[in-house]
C-alpha cells in the first residue's frame, strides 16, 4: 500500500508543479474533439438527407423527415457532449472521464439501434471509432491522471492501520 500511496503523492506533486499532462491524455483530448467534429458532421448530413428527400408518398416522406431530424438532433447532441468531454479532458475536470465514457456508450447505443433498423454504412465507422476510444480511455495513464486530479482536489487521506504496516 505504501508504494501506491507514494506513486499517487508523486503524481499529485507533478500536477501541483504544473508539469505537462501525459501524452495519452493529450491524444485523447484531440480524439474527442475529432469525434465532436465527426458527430456534428453526421448531424448536418442527416439534416440534409432528410430535407432533400423527394418522395411522392406524403406519409412516407413525413416518416423519413421525422427519422432524419431525430438523427440530426441525436448526433448534434452527441457532438455537443463530445465537445464537453473534450473540454473536460483539456481542463482535467473530474467529470471529463465519465463524460467521455458516457459519450462512447451513447454513441454505441445509437449505432446499435440504427444497425438493427438497417443502418447506413457510416455507422460501422462510428462503432469502430468508439470501440477504439473505449480502449484508449482505459489507458492506465489516462485514468491515473484523473484519479490523481481527484486526490489533489480532495483532502489527502490519512493512512489507515493497514497502510501504516
Amino acid at each position, binding site marked *: 500500500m505504501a508504494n501506491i500511496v507514494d506513486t*499517487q503523492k508523486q503524481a499529485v506533486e507533478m500536477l501541483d508543479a504544473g508539469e505537462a499532462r501525459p501524452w495519452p491524455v493529450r491524444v485523447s483530448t484531440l480524439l474527442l474533439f475529432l469525434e465532436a467534429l465527426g458527430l456534428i458532421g453526421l448531424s448536418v448530413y442527416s439534416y440534409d438527407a432528410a430535407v432533400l428527400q423527394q418522395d411522392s408518398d406524403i406519409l412516407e416522406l413525413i416518416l423519413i423527415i421525422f427519422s432524419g431530424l431525430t438523427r440530426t438532433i441525436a448526433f448534434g447532441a452527441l457532438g455537443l457532449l463530445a465537445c464537453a468531454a473534450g473540454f473536460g479532458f483539456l481542463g482535467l475536470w473530474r467529470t471529463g472521464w465519465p463524460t467521455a465514457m458516457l459519450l462512447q456508450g451513447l454513441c*454505441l447505443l445509437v449505432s*446499435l439501434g440504427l444497425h438493427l433498423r438497417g443502418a447506413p454504412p457510416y455507422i460501422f465507422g462510428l*462503432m469502430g471509432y468508439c470501440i477504439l476510444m473505449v480502449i484508449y480511455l482505459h489507458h492506465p495513464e489516462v485514468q491515473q491522471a484523473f484519479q490523481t486530479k481527484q486526490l489533489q482536489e480532495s483532502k489527502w487521506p490519512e493512512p489507515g492501520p493497514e497502510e501504516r*504496516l
Partner: protein
Amino acid sequence: MTPEEERLLLRRFEPVVKYTKGEQFFPIDIEQYIRACSLWVQRPNRYPLRLLPEGELTPERLAEPRNHGFDAIYYLKFIEPLNVTEIARHRIREGLTRKSDQVFRAGPGRLARVGYGSRFVDALFSLSLLARGRVPGDTALAASIAYLEMLKENEKYCYYGRVVEQSDWIVLQYWFFYTYNNWRSGYVGANDHEGDWEMICIYLYRDDEEQAHPEWVAYASHDFSGDDLRRRWDDEELEKVGEHPVVYAGAGSHASYFQEGEYLAEIELPFLTPVIRFTRRLQVFWEKNILPYDHRKSADGETGLIFSIFRVPFVDYARGEGLGIGPQQEKVWSEPEIISNPPAWVSQYRGLWGLFAQDPFAGENAPAGPMYNRDGTVRQAWYDPLGWAGLDKVPPPQERLSLIQARRTEIKADISNIEAQIEEKSRELHKMGIELASMRGFPHLRDARDLQQAKINALSKELDQLLKQSAMDESSLETLHLYAERIKAGERSPVRAHIRRAHHPTTSESIRLNKLAEIWAAVSIGIMMFSFILLAVFARDFLIYGIASVISVIVFVEASFRGQITRFISSITVGLAVVSGLVIFVEFFWAIVVAAVLVSGGYIMWENIRELRR
C-alpha cells in the same frame, strides 16, 4: 494444570462482552435453562415424541444414554409461542414500562446498503421462510419473558471455561450460552432459534520462567474461518480492558466482533453455490482485466469482500452501547464452570439445545452443545482449537529460535547429503561421457551409443534436480538465519500479515443514505415486478425492449443512490463496445481476415528489411 490453576487463568483473561442497546438475552447458566426445557426426539416420518417434560430435566438426565435409532434427532424445547391475548397484554405492559433509551433503533435499513440483485434474492429468501420449517414468530417474545423470569429468580451472568494444552500453546476457551437467538424477529436478521452457543479463544504461551502470556485471540464469527478469525494481542483492532479482551456481540445473533459497529453479513443459499462460484470468477476477471484502475484498492489487490448479488444481506448490529458484562462493567461474570474435563451434559448429549424446526437450511434449527456440530460430529473448535484459528502452523514465540535452529540443522544435514550425491553422480556422469565419446566413429555401436545417451540424459536431469534442491536449501538456510537475527533483535512479524479477509464494520460514509434511498430499496423490487406485468399485459410487442428499459432505469437509479455512476457508465459502455465489436466482426469477417493477413505480412516484411539494413 490443576483445576484451580485453570480457574485462575480463565478469570485472569475473562472477556468483557458489550451488547447493543435493546439486547434481550445474555449468557445464562445452562442448568436454569435445562430445567425449563422438555426433551424431545424426532424420528423420520414420525411425530415428535416427548421424552421428558419440563421441570423434570436436569443436566444429568440430559446426558443419559437413549436409543431411538440412527436417524433420531434429540432436541430440547424451551418455550411455547404465546397466544394473542398474552401477546397483547405483554405489548401493552412493555409500552408502558419500557424506557425509550433502552429501545433498539435499526438506522438505515439493510436493504438500502446492498445492491439490487441481493434485494431480489432476499425477497426469495423471505418467501422461502413460508415454506421452510422455522421457529414460530412469537416464540422470541415468549422466550424473552421466560428469560426475564429466570433473571428475576437468579440474576447470574456466566460462561463455561475450558483450558486445553496443544502443541505448547495454552488455549482458553470461553463458551457463552444464550436461551434464544432472535436475530430475525428482533433485528431483521437471517434466523431465529432457541438456544445459542458462542465462543471465543485466547491463546497463551509460557515464557522461560513458566509465566503465561497472551499472544492471540480468536472470535467465532459468521462467514469467517482459519487465520481470519484471530488477532494478535498487540493488534490495535483488539480492544482490551486491562488483560481482558473486549467482545462486541451482535444484537440477537450474539456473533462476536473485535470492533463495535454494524456488520454486513451475507448468507449464501446452498442451492445457489455453483452460481455464486461462477459469478465470483467472472467478477474477479472483470475487476482485474476490464474495470479501470482503482486507487482505493490496496497493494495486494484486496478490496474487502467481493460482493455477490446471490447472497442475502443481513446487518449484524454490534454497537456495544448497551449492557457490558465483565471486569469493570455494569455486570460481572459469576464464578465460571470449568469444562476442561467435560461433564456428561457436554460429552454425552449430542442433541440440539433448542427446537428442531426441520429447516433444510439449518439456520432455524437450534445448535448442538459446545462439543458437537448439529449432525453429532465433534466441532473442530473443540478437538483442534489451534487448527480452527489457523494457528496449527504457528509456534509459540519462545520456541521460534530453537525451531529455527533445529530446522537449520536439518537443512544443513540435507545439504551435506545432497552434496555427496552430487559428487557421486557428477563423477558417474563424467565416466559415462567419456564412454560415449569413445564410441564415436564405430557404426556397429550405434545402438549402444543411443542407450548410453539416454542414460546420460536421465542422470543429467537427476543431477540438475539435486543442484536445484541444494540451491534452494542454501537459500532457505540464509533466510532462516536472517529471520533468527530479526527475532533476536526483537523484531516481530507484521501484526496483520496473516489476515486475508478482515470483517470491517460498515463505515458511517457508506450508511449515510437518505430516506429516499431507503424508500427506494424497500419498493424497487415491487416496482420491477409490477412493471413486468404491465408490459406483459399492455405492451407485449415491446416486451424485450420494455424489460431492458425498466432494468436500465432501475440500475441507473440504484447506481445514483450509491454514488457509482462512473462505474455504472464504464461497465455499460464496455459491454456495448464488446457487442459492437462482435457486430463489426460478423459484418466484416472476410475484410477483417484479409486486413489482418495484409498487416501481418507488411509488418514481417518491414521487420526483415530493417534487419537487412543494420
